[in-house]
């Protein structure tokens, strides 16, 4: 346009001595600036919308699709009478989403007021309230849309209060979950176990198996070992939500999910135990006077575990939720160690081990049933004539092997043991499954110790010494066995020489009661003994209870033929009366038995940690268990 030229001569623009023509450079750079700025912005849009668009589409998708894991119901654990011993109860948890609960524009007091009312509805302490307020305030912006737990397992009352005040409590949600529940409380707690939430470190390892924050995992017993079977597989569902996390159900929103398909959860499998909780109760009752100990009861004909208990026990319901301080403190400081499963820990066996020495003596042909040895009350060993005393200092006189078992004569077994040697004794112990885990599969059972010459040489500088053989032959020295091993050992004697694997699970079923797998009884070993060998030992064990010289004669039952063996294992080098010493130096009391002798239905091992005498203390406990087992459990069957 020629306009600019004209203006120069035109007086209308009077005050302007110059014209836009002088600004050519300025116009040029302003145009360039605009072009560069718009060009740069366009490259940014190009990058976001063309190059990276797939990435951002995915992010947008993740924004409006809220995936929710549908937790699988954990499998139940049932006893042989199909009573649930570990089951699930509905539980209501309260969560809170900081982004919706807080409002940056509101004054501090109104936030505090809301926290105050929420925590008072839930009956939370002022400390818990302050902790919660702190946690909400400290939530990182990136996490502000993730719900944080406020309280789990609220009562019906609290639920109602929160629900009626829902309008006031933005972002507070009640989540229906399920909580593990153990109807029998302490009964069989070690065996059944408990569950609790996995921590961060575990989460890292378990992520690949689909575990998420807040998931529980079995911590002990069956719950722990059979975690993969009990757990099941979580499902996944999704819904369209807006930025406030509120589900959108209109047709258009739902159509955004396109071909999304929900994945249904698969419930965990139910485990049916061989255990009868009524037997469990009998075992627990029998231990009532003893602070620490264990009883294991098995079926000799199958190796099925009828019950196993460890004292003191704990309440798995407390351990599966939030443990109170007191309970935690108790578990840590209780000298009787309630969290240890003593049925699977190893201890000195004492005289109940003498059946091993007896079996070795008879099977090797060293002794015949009618052969006798003389007990003067002591045995002088080796060139130094070191005296090993019999528990009966006055001596037993001439005793046969059955009498030696019945009266628990130490000298007989010293003499026999010395001739057999420690390694031969160990061979026989191992035949009976000692020195190795029984394979019950729970609570990291101990293998126990079966000392050999080599074992002693490795263990100390002095190495093996002859006296060790004598101690070993009467179940002292370094021998260690678990109550479960003893029950299995006496069951093997009872059934005529079949060593079974202990079995605690009868079968596994789906949630709807379909049997997936039935466990058969499994034979560990068939002992290659002559029939007379075990018969002789059996009659020795019979005499323990039923002959006047027997150590448990005083506790025999009028209506039941019991065979067994007492054991009082020294834990310090001197045998002393219980009352005189501190608990931890007292003898362990044992009684292993089976009944009835002719057709054994049950074999048990009673172990009283530092419980005193095998006959006076463990004997009555064992007899109570057996008596009640036949009267209450097998009452419908004819008792011999």
């Amino acid at each position, binding site marked *: *346009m020629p*306009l*600019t030229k*004209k*203006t120069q001569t*035109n007086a*209308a*623009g009077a*005050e*302007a*001595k*110059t*014209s*836009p023509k*002088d*600004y050519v*450079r*300025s*116009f040029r*750079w*302003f*145009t360039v*600036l*605009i*072009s560069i*700025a*718009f060009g740069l*912005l*366009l490259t*940014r*849009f*190009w990058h*976001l*919308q*063309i190059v*990276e*668009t797939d*990435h*951002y*589409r995915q*992010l*947008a*998708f993740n*924004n*409006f699709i809220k995936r929710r894991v549908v937790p699988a119901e954990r499998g139940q654990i049932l006893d042989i009478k199909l009573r649930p011993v570990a089951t699930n109860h509905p539980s209501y948890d309260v969560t809170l989403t900081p*982004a919706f609960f807080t409002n*940056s*524009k509101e004054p501090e007091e109104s936030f505090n007021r809301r926290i105050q009312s929420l925590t008072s509805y839930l009956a939370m302490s002022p400390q818990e309230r302050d902790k919660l307020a702190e946690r909400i305030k400290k939530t*990182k*912006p*990136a996490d*502000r849309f993730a719900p944080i737990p406020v309280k789990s397992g609220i009562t019906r009352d609290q639920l109602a209060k929160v629900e009626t005040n829902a309008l006031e409590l933005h972002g507070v949600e009640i989540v229906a979950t399920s909580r593990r529940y153990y109807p029998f409380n302490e009964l069989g707690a070690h065996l059944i176990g408990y569950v609790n939430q996995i921590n961060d470190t575990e989460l890292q390892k378990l992520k690949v198996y689909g575990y998420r924050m807040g998931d529980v995992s079995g911590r002990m017993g069956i719950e722990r070992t059979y975690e993969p079977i009990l757990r099941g597989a979580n499902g996944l569902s999704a819904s*369209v*939500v*807006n*930025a*406030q996390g509120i589900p*959108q159900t209109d047709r258009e929103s739902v159509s*955004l999910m396109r071909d999304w398909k929900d994945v249904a959860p698969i419930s965990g499998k139910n485990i049916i135990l061989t255990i009868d909780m009524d037997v469990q109760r009998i075992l627990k009752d029998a231990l009532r006077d003893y602070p620490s100990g264990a009883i294991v009861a098995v079926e000799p004909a199958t190796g099925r575990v009828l019950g196993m208990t460890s004292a003191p026990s704990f309440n798995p319901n407390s351990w599966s939720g939030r443990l109170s301080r007191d309970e935690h403190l108790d578990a840590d400081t209780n000298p009787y160690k309630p969290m240890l499963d003593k049925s699977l820990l190893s201890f000195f066996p004492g005289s109940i081990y003498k059946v091993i020495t007896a079996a070795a003596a008879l099977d090797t042909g060293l002794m015949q049933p009618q052969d006798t040895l003389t007990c003067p009350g002591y045995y002088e060993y080796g060139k130094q004539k070191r005296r090993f005393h019999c528990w009966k200092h006055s001596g037993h006189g001439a005793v046969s092997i059955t009498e030696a078992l019945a009266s628990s004569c130490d000298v007989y077994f010293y003499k026999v043991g010395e001739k057999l040697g420690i390694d031969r004794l160990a061979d026989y112990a191992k035949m009976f499954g000692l020195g190795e885990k029984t394979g019950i599969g729970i609570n990291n059972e101990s293998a126990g110790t079966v000392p050999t010459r080599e074992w002693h040489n490795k263990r100390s500088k002095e190495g093996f010494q002859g006296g060790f053989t004598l101690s070993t032959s009467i179940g002292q020295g370094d021998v260690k066995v678990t109550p479960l091993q003893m029950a299995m050992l006496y069951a093997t004697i009872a059934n005529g020489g079949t060593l079974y694997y202990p079995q605690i699970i009868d079968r596994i079923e789906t949630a709807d009661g379909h049997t997936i797998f039935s466990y058969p009884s499994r034979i560990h070993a068939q002992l290659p003994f002559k029939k007379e060998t075990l018969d002789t030992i059996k009659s020795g064990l019979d005499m323990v209870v039923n002959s006047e010289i027997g150590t448990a004669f005083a506790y025999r039952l009028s209506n039941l033929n019991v065979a067994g063996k007492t054991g009082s294992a020294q834990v310090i080098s001197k045998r002393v009366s219980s009352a005189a010493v501190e608990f931890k130096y007292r003898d362990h009391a044992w009684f292993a038995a089976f009944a009835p002798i002719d057709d054994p239905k049950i074999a048990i091992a009673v172990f009283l940690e530092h419980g005193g005498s095998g006959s006076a203390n463990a004997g009555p406990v064992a007899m109570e268990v057996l008596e009640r087992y036949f009267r209450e459990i097998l009452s419908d069957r004819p008792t011999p």
Partner: protein
Amino acid sequence: MKLIAPRPIKNFISSFDLVLFFLVLAIIGIGIFNLTSIANILPKPLHNMQILWFTLGFIFCVIPCASIDYRNYARFGSAIYGAGIAMLVAVLIFGSDFNGSRRWINLGLFTMQPSELMKIALVIFIAKLFSEREHRQDYRLKDLLPVFGAVLLPMVLIFLEPDLGTALLLALISGIMILFEGVKTKTIALIAAILIACAPAAWFVMHDYQRSRVLTFLQIEDDPYGSDWQVKNSVIAVGAGGLTGRGYGQSTQVQKGFVPEPENDFALANWAEEYGFVGVALLLALYFCLLLWALHIAKSSRDRFGMLLAVGIAAIFFWQVVVNTAMVVRWAPVVGITLPLISYGGSSVLCMMICIGILMNVSIRRHMLSSS
């Protein structure tokens, strides 16, 4: 002082700038269309209100501002500037608090944001200051001191509201005008050095939330106010748009409420998500044409004042478009600068219509003056 008499109405109509009119109309159309697509997620639909604002703006801003001979703006330049300053002082005293800052004056019928008007008042005043002197291409610092004073005073007042974004916008707009006049290279270097030296001082007068916005923008700090989370969602919205967008009303990011203020500061995010790169390129092209046309008006204007006025208005548009767009794609921190003619809001719309009116005025006068 007498008003310069208006020219005959016939002349006015024949010289009406149709290019400017249709460019503006196209952008406004996009803005209103954009508002209709998010009507369902707003507390109440805003597109009809926006149409009303533009209509009012056309009648009460564009027509009057275009009719009065712009040379009157130069005459009353000091008064306009003074009125602007007075309003800024008034807002600090009488203004209503909103989100912790005082930016608004309640006029009963509607609220007004004086800082918006100040942008225009400042452009007029600077144009007046320069046009009253002899033009020299090589201003030195000493020559520019009155101009700096004129810029700094409203900047400080706006900063006190506090509204850091608009305060900086004043600096950017006047910067264009000053450089347009021509400054000695040495002086530019000197000013730059002074600005850099003052930057740390600015840090200390800033409010906590302002610092935090800068830090989160630079990704130095976590985002305690959640504003960065919102901007990241805006970027997701833009990226999710792809080449051609997700279609009308299909912007999940905006429709599901992940993008803040989709009717206002982040209106572009909705447009970008629904119409993709094509839509964005179209809109930016319209703005680009508008700016080039404004420069064309400036270039062909009869006098220096008219030219500087048009350049100043172009600078307002330029910076607002650039800053707002950069904010939406997370190239600039969130500073509350609206997208001209697109963002919803009476104050912003009326202010932009005044700008268009002034531009129209300069455009019309170049023909009318030549034909007289």
